[in-house]
């Protein structure tokens, strides 16, 4: 009887968790500790000098994500020295999506000459916590006195084919604003991308 009562009490909590939508702009982020393709673990705390982070959910197999990799490498070159390093997390469950295993990730990082950490997320725990839904899906984070806070969620730019002269570089603009001590003008964008592959 007591167990049953406990279950009834717990159930709404479980349901709420299943419907969790992830971080919104302004949310305080919980640190994570995930394995990088070089076998070392990486967390936000691994960067004591960082002023923020460019966390990108990306993967091996999605053509949209791959099409953006040169631009991700450029973001790392441009902003890691200014205190906004790029960290990429693979949100896909390798048991659901072939070609997303840790070994595949290692190979992919080498082949694409990624200049930033590329982390696996066993059980998609961090992916769910962020609420990453597609690849690529970017979260720009800022270190503040109240913790590490989400400042921008969305696309890298509005030009997946990389040929638009009227391109708006959302992530670059957001980070530049934060570096200038201001909040980004655009804090949320949507983009067509590959759905995250996970169980349930």
């Amino acid at each position, binding site marked *: 009887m007591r167990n049953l009562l406990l279950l009834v009490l717990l159930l709404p909590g479980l349901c709420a968790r299943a419907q969790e939508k992830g971080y919104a702009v302004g949310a305080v982020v919980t640190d994570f500790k995930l394995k990088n393709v070089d076998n070392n673990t990486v967390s936000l705390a691994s960067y004591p000098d960082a002023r923020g982070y460019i966390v990108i959910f990306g993967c091996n197999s999605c*053509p949209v994500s791959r099409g953006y990799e040169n631009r991700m490498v450029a973001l790392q070159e441009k902003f890691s020295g200014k205190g906004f390093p790029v960290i990429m997390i693979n949100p896909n469950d390798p048991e659901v999506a072939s070609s997303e295993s840790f070994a595949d990730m290692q190979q992919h990082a080498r082949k694409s000459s990624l200049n930033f950490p590329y982390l696996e997320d066993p059980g998609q725990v961090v992916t769910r916590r962020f609420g990453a839904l597609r690849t690529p899906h970017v979260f720009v984070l800022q270190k503040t006195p109240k913790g590490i806070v989400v400042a921008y969620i969305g696309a890298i730019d509005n030009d997946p084919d990389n040929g638009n002269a009227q391109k708006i570089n959302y992530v670059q603009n957001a980070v530049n604003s934060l570096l200038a001590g201001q909040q980004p003008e655009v804090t949320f964008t*949507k*983009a067509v991308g590959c*759905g995250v592959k996970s169980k349930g």
Partner: protein
Amino acid sequence: MVVLQTLLLSAHAQQVRLATLDQLEQRFAAGRDTTYIINFWATWCGPCVQELPHFERFGKTLQHTPVKVLLVSLDARSKLKNEVMPFVQKAKLKNEVLLLNETDQQQYIDRISPQWSGSIPATLFINKRKQLRRLEEKEFTYDQLLALYNSLK
């Protein structure tokens, strides 16, 4: 010979037309009691390509009911001739295929559905008369597709 083959092919295979969101909405509005099932896909999207046969089977099975399946490709317009058309011909798709003639994702994703993050595959169910407009951001099996359609009737 090659010319003849090309002619024969194009005579049988459907042409993929461009459609703006306005054109699609006009069609839905004029659809009376028709339920439109609009699958957003792209040639580059593996899971989308995998679920297309389910939409084909669904369209064929329900061809005498007021249901219209539209396969709306989100491929770039520049890929229409060299990638989308050959794909549609090779896969012998019978459902009507369109290529979305919109460029501003910040606009069109929300116009299609505020609930949509933009990830594909995604499928929109519309019936104007029933004021139905529901977006499912997921992959469907045939049974799931049929079950959802039946539950919306």
